[in-house]
C-alpha cells in the first residue's frame, strides 16, 4: 500500500461531534475511553504486581529461615490460613499455595495486563492516530471481566482451604485432586481472564487494521504498535485452547469427569473413584500451547516500549526497522510451534523432542535479531540518560542474560539435568523481572507526562533504578549457581531436607552443600530490599500526580510518534482534528531538518 493522503476519505463522520459532559461514574469508572481503561488496567495490574511480590517475599523468608515465624505478617497469615500458618510459620501447603498464586498473579494479573492491556490501550490508538479503539464498549467489558477475574483469584485466598496449590501450571491430576475449592476458583478466574483478553485482543487487532490515520501505512507504524499487533494475535489464537482446557479441568473438578485423570489412578494407597481414561499429558499440551506463546506476550510489549524509548533518547532512527518488524512477526508465528520444550521430561520420544528442540532454536534467531537491532541503535547516538532510558538500557543486557540462559533449557539433553531446578527460575525471571518489568517501568516513566502532564521525580527515579538493578541481580544471579548444583525449585524448606545426604556406597556428600543452601539468606535479604525499593516508586508515582514538575510542551521528550502530537492529557476523542501521517516513525536528526526530530504528521 502506497501512502496516499488522499485516501483519507474517513466515512461515517456523524455530525454529533459534541461530547456531553459525562458524570463521574461514566467518566472514570465505567468509561469507554481507551485512555481511562488503560489507566484502570495499569493501576490494577501494578497493585497485583506488588501483591504477587509480597507473596514471594513471604516464601523467601521461609526458604532462608525454614520453620521460623514470618515477621510482621505472620499473625495475619495465621488468622487467615489457620493451621496452614500456625504460629505464623509457613507450612508446606501454604508455600505451595503462595507459589501457585505468585506465578498466576505475576503472569496473568500483573505483567500481561500491564504490558498488553494497559500500555496497549493507552498508547496504541494515540500512536496510530485513532480517536479510540474500534469497539469502546467491548473494551470496557474487557476491563470489567478482567476485574471480576482478579476478584475471583483474590477471594480464593479466603475460602476454606485457601487458594490453588497445584502450581501456576495446574498440572493434572495434582491440581484436580487437591481436596480444596481453591482450584475451582482458579479455573473460574482463568476462564474470566481469558475471556477478557480475547475481547481485548479482538479490539487491538481490529483497531490496528481499521483505524490507522490516513498515511499511516503498515511500514510507518511505530514498532511498539507492531509488537502489540503480534501480541494481540498470540492472545487471540493461543488462549482459546487453554480456555478449553480450563473448562475441561473444571468439569473434572466439579462434575467428576476424567479428561485429565488416567485409568487406575491411586492416591495415597486409595484408588480414585473416577471413570478414568483421560490423559494428564493432554492438559500439559493445551496449557503450554498457551504457556509458551505467553512468554512472548510477556516480553514483546516490553521490547516495544524499550524500542520507542531508545529511539527518542538516542536522537537517531532505530537501526533495522524492517528487521524488527519481520522478526516480531516471525517470533509470533513460530511461538505457536515450540511449546513442548516445556515437556522434555514427560518421556516423549526422540523424534518429537528433536522437532521441538529445532523450532526452539529457530525462534531464538528473530529474538536475537531484535536484541541486536536495539543494541545497534545505541551506536553513535547522543544518549540522554534519563530514568526511562536507564530502565530501557538495563533491559537489554538483562533480557540478554535471560534469553541466553534459556538455550540450555531448549536443548532436550541439557534440559533433563536442569529441569525443575533453580536454574529455570533464574532463567525465566531474568526474562520477565529485570527484563519485562524493567521495560514496563521504563514505559511508566516515559508516558507518565503524557497521561498526567507532569514528570515523575527524576532523582528518585534514578535511585529506584540503580537499587532495583542491584537487588534484581543479587536475587537471581545466585539462583543459577543453586540450580546448577541441583537444587529443586519445589523444596519448601529451601533444600534443608536434602542437605548433606550421603551416598551409602561411597560415603560422599551427594546432597546440597551448605554453601549452596546458605545462598538462600542473601537472596532473601535482597528480595526484601527490592520490595522496599519499590516503595520509592509507589510514592513517586502518587506524589508526582500533584507535585511533579509540569511539562512545558505536549512533547516533552521531543519524540516523533503521534501520541506526543496531542494535547496533554489527550481529551476524549484524542485528536482535535484527524492527523495525517507523512513519514516513518523514527525520523530523528534528519540532515537538513529544522529540529533533531521530525514528527510523523509533519508535512514533507
Amino acid at each position, binding site marked *: 500500500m502506497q501512502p496516499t493522503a488522499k485516501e483519507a476519505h474517513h466515512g461515517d463522520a456523524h455530525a454529533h461531534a459534541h461530547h456531553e459532559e459525562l458524570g463521574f461514574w461514566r467518566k472514570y469508572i465505567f468509561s469507554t475511553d481507551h485512555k481511562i481503561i488503560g489507566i484502570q488496567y495499569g493501576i490494577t495490574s501494578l497493585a497485583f504486581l506488588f501483591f504477587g511480590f509480597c507473596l514471594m517475599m513471604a516464601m523467601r523468608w521461609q526458604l532462608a529461615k525454614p520453620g521460623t515465624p514470618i515477621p510482621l505478617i505472620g499473625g495475619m497469615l495465621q488468622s487467615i490460613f489457620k493451621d496452614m500458618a500456625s504460629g505464623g510459620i509457613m507450612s508446606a501447603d501454604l508455600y505451595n499455595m503462595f507459589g501457585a498464586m505468585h506465578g498466576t498473579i505475576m503472569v496473568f494479573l500483573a505483567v500481561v495486563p500491564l504490558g498488553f492491556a494497559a500500555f496497549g490501550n493507552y498508547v496504541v490508538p494515540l500512536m496510530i492516530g485513532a480517536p479510540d479503539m474500534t469497539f469502546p464498549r467491548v473494551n470496557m467489558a474487557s476491563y470489567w471481566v478482567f476485574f471480576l477475574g482478579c476478584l475471583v483469584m483474590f477471594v480464593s485466598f479466603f475460602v476454606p482451604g485457601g487458594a490453588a496449590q497445584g502450581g501456576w501450571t495446574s498440572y493434572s491430576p495434582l491440581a484436580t485432586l487437591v481436596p480444596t475449592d481453591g482450584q475451582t476458583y482458579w479455573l473460574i478466574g482463568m476462564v474470566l481472564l481469558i475471556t477478557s483478553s480475547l475481547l481485548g485482543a479482538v479490539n487491538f487487532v481490529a483497531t490496528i*487494521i481499521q483505524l490507522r490515520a490516513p498515511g499511516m501505512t503498515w511500514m510507518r507504524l511505530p514498532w511498539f504498535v507492531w509488537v502489540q499487533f503480534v501480541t494481540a*494475535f498470540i492472545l487471540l*489464537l*493461543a488462549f482459546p*485452547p487453554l480456555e478449553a482446557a480450563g473448562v475441561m479441568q473444571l468439569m473434572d473438578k466439579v462434575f467428576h469427569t476424567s479428561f485429565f485423570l*488416567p*485409568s*487406575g489412578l491411586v492416591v495415597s494407597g486409595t484408588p480414585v473413584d473416577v471413570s*478414568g*481414561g*483421560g*490423559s*494428564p*499429558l*493432554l492438559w500439559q*499440551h*493445551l496449557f503450554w*500451547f498457551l504457556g509458551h506463546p505467553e512468554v512472548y506476550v510477556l516480553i514483546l510489549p516490553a521490547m516495544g516500549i524499550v524500542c520507542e524509548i531508545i529511539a527518542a533518547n538516542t536522537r537517531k532512527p532505530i537501526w533495522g526497522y524492517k528487521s524488527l518488524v519481520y522478526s516480531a512477526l516471525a517470533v509470533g*508465528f513460530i511461538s*505457536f*510451534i515450540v511449546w*513442548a520444550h516445556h*515437556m522434555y521430561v514427560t*518421556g*516423549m*520420544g*526422540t*523424534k*518429537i523432542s528433536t*522437532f521441538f528442540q529445532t523450532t526452539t532454536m529457530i525462534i531464538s534467531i528473530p529474538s536475537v535479531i531484535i536484541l541486536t537491532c536495539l543494541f545497534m541503535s545505541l551506536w553513535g547516538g547522543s544518549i540522554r540518560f534519563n530514568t526511562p532510558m536507564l530502565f530501557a538500557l538495563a533491559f537489554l543486557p538483562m533480557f540478554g542474560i535471560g534469553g541466553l540462559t534459556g538455550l540450555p533449557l531448549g536443548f532436550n539433553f541439557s534440559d533433563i539435568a536442569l529441569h525443575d531446578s533453580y536454574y529455570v527460575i533464574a532463567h525465566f525471571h531474568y526474562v520477565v523481572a529485570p527484563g519485562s518489568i524493567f521495560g514496563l517501568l521504563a514505559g511508566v516513566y516515559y508516558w507518565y507526562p503524557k497521561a498526567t502532564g507532569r514528570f515523575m521525580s527524576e532523582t528518585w527515579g534514578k535511585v529506584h533504578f540503580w537499587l532495583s538493578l542491584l537487588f534484581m541481580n543479587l536475587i537471581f544471579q545466585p539462583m543459577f549457581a543453586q540450580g546448577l548444583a541441583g537444587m529443586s525449585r519445589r523444596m519448601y524448606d529451601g533444600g534443608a531436607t536434602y542437605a548433606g545426604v550421603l551416598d551409602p556406597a561411597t560415603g560422599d556428600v551427594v546432597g546440597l552443600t551448605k554453601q549452596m543452601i546458605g545462598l538462600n539468606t542473601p537472596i532473601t535479604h535482597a528480595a526484601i530490599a527490592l520490595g522496599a525499593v519499590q516503595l520509592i516508586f509507589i510514592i513517586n508515582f502518587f506524589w508526582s500526580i500533584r507535585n511533579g514538575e509540569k511539562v512545558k510542551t505536549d512533547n516533552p521528550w521531543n519524540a516523533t510518534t503521534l501520541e506526543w502530537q496531542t494535547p496533554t492529557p489527550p481529551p476524549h476523542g484524542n485528536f482535535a482534528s484527524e492527523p495525517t501521517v507523512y513519514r516513518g516513525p523514527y525520523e530523528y536528526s534528519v540532515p537538513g531538518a529544522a529540529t533533531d526530530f521530525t514528527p510523523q504528521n509533519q508535512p514533507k
Partner: protein
Amino acid sequence: MSATTPDEVHKSVRKYLAVFIALIIGTVITVGAYYVHLPSVAMTIAVALLIASVKAFLVAGFFMHLISEKKMIYGILVATVFFVIGLCFLTIWSMHDFPANMNHSVTGQM
C-alpha cells in the same frame, strides 16, 4: 459482500436455497451411511468427515460469503487454520512418539 443491487440479491437468494438443499441432502447421506454399516470403521469415519467438510465449506463459503471475502479475512483465517492443525497434529504426534521400552499408552497409564 457480493450482493449490493436488488438483482444480485435475488440471484444470491437462489444460491442460498441451493446450498440449503445440498446441506439437507448431505445430512441424509451421512445418517444413511451410518445405518447401512459400511465395511470398515475407517471408511465410515472418512465418509462422515468428508461430507461434514463439504457441508462446512458450503456454509462458510456461501452463507458466510467467504468465497468472495477480502484478503485481510483470508489472512486471519489461514493463520488460524495453520495453528489449529499444528495444535492437533503435534499433540497427537507427541502422544504417540514414546520410547519403545516405556509402557506408555496415550492415556498416560504407566
